[in-house]
């Protein structure tokens, strides 16, 4: 009855249409889910998508929080998009995020309690370096030994988590913390605190960095030769070789840049919203950013928007739990649906649906 026919070329129309369609189908299916749980589906969807932005009670707090939540997602997703375009699959941003946080916090704690305006810039450099070095491991292993970067970068997340657990209880442990794990709180250390640039706006230095990164990557991808090389390598690996693209340099660039940006995100998080290195410091930004990158079509502007949207579902989802007493799992399911339907609707970019029997 239905038949899928491969399109000779990806449909540009569907590439841009499918995220919107996916969001719409998610709303409908989510509504059915919430109705099955005995809640008014319109109310639930309104609380998730509308209330964080416009509810008189919450909006003044949730709107800035949206930026706080979206900032690291956008920063990481932009980095990932370079690699994903070139066919270099960095799945380990979560680990690079952790290492960036550890490097950044280490610099701060090494200077504690000295106050100096050079500390924060040094932390930024250290954070980027930490993530960069952690991203470099799968890059070099792939370039030299042809290992699979998906597996190596993913496995390094677990190594990073173990390092995080170790430093939380040892190297970076707060000496005034009664033996409990966790570092000093950097929010209380003026020179190292990643503060809001404008009070109560949610706009901390990391969010500003994320916005700058969106602009810079847009320029690189559209105007710079490196952007061309990346896209070419992804679309036509053989042609790119003839064009003189050095594949090793390309892998190192992609994993290095995504590692550095993930590391920066970790640094801004540990010195800002989170404040301290703890065993449970990482909360999945590195993985969620993969969804953000794809939902944003690997395009800087798209990533910017999808980062905000995913942040909205988090904050709205929390509100829905609170206001309606919805189970936490139903919100996770709702977010999962979004990726699921995106993958499903992406099918139409590559395939045409033919209705009717023909042989």
């Amino acid at each position: 009855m239905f038949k899928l026919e491969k399109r000779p070329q990806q449909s540009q129309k569907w590439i841009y249409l499918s995220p919107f369609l996916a969001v719409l189908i998610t709303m409908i299916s989510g509504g059915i889910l919430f109705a099955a749980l005995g809640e008014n589906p319109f109310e639930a969807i309104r609380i998730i998508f509308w209330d964080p932005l416009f509810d008189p009670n919450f909006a003044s707090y949730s709107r800035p929080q949206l930026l706080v939540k979206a900032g690291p997602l956008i920063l990481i997703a932009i980095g990932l998009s370079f690699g994903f375009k070139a066919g270099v699959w960095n799945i380990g941003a979560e680990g690079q995020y952790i290492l960036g946080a550890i490097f950044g916090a280490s610099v701060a704690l090494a200077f504690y309690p000295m106050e100096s305006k050079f500390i924060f810039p040094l932390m930024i450099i250290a954070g980027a370096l930490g993530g960069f070095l952690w991203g470099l491991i799968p890059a070099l292993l792939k370039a030299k030994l042809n290992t699979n970067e998906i597996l190596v970068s993913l496995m390094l997340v677990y190594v990073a988590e173990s390092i995080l657990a170790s430093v939380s209880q040892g190297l970076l442990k707060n000496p005034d913390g009664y033996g409990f794990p966790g570092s000093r709180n950097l929010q209380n250390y003026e020179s190292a605190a990643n503060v809001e640039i404008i009070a109560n706006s949610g706009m901390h230095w990391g969010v500003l960095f994320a916005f700058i990164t969106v602009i810079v990557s847009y320029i690189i991808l559209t105007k710079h030769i490196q952007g061309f090389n990346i896209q070419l390598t992804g679309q036509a690996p053989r042609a790119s070789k003839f064009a003189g693209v050095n594949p090793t340099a390309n892998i190192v660039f992609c994993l290095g840049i995504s590692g550095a940006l993930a590391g920066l995100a970790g640094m801004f998080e540990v010195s800002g919203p989170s404040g301290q290195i703890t065993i449970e410091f990482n909360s999945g930004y590195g993985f969620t950013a993969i969804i953000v990158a794809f939902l944003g079509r690997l395009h800087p502007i798209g990533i910017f928007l999808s980062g905000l949207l995913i942040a909205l579902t988090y904050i709205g989802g929390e509100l829905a739990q609170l206001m309606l007493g919805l189970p936490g799992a139903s919100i996770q399911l709702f977010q999962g649906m979004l990726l699921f339907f995106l993958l499903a609707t992406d099918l139409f970019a590559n395939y045409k649906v033919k209705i009717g029997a023909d042989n």
Partner: protein
Amino acid sequence: MYIKSVIAGAIASLGVAAAALAADVKVGFVYVGPVGDYGWTYEHDQGRLAVEEHFGDRVETVYQELVPEGADSERVMTQMALQGADLIFTTSFGYMEPTINVAKKFPDVKFEHATGYMRADNVSTYSARFYEGRAIQGHIAGKMTKTNKVGYIGSFPIPEVVRGINSAFIHARKVNPDVEFNIVWIYTWFDPAKEADAATALIEQGCDVVLQHTDSTAPQAAAEKAGGVITFGQASDMAMFKPMPRVSSIIDDWAPYYIARTQAVLDGTWTSTDTWDGIGPGMVGIGEITSAVPADVKAEALAMKDAIASGDYHPFTGPINKQDGSVWLAAGETADDGTLLGMNFYVEGIKGDVPQ
């Protein structure tokens, strides 16, 4: 769609207004696990339900489950405060700094943080002396193990967990000088897959008793599958695994505390306090000791429970040496709360190191 959302909004705000009129006090709960974990979070939620039942319409409760420790929890607490909560219980160690931060922004809202050590004018702390229950577990474990190997699933190497290991070990050794503890750390409070893996690994190493300081029933299921292994319910009774593998349990009973604190807010008598109650006041309960335990062992365990409850016996009574052989408590000396709260060392006889 627009009209619908306006109508829905109007209905919702009417509902909120009605609720606000009905209830004198709104109490919020922040949970680290799902309410259906049948362990730690489940018992806190039972406490919440007890508050609802006790006060009826005078009190409204809200909760949020699966809240990650760290920056996310700060937002959840803030939203609860914005929503009008008067009293907020934050029920995991990792919520400590976020609780303090949010409490600063809402001086009129009372906060209660479980298992931490930071307080403020509007932040109390509360915890239970779980180590009292661990002593009874250790006694039963030492008596019942045939392989002399007891497995212990540790969550995070924080004082509370280390204290439990020491208490169980001391009492197991007392009745069985050959007993050894195999301790694994899994760095999570709730992860059924990791907990099951840890339990299975311990059983394969020859442990026929598995103790856990994690919140799911996965270790119980793993023990049931392996057969011949005994376990204890953790935080909650976990009665569905009776009579084997679960032979007894430590039950956290938060209900009386939650009711008392809510009452204090209603009366306007709430003040910042530090509560650390054990078996005596009923914050720690010992679940039914099943028929799988020999009658004499059961009788001894119950006698110990009574002695602890009446204050005649302190589970940390000297002579006890630290792991390195140095004297910690002289004969007859009991541990002071300060040392217990910061406990980061093993007692003599435990192999391995507290992860640093």
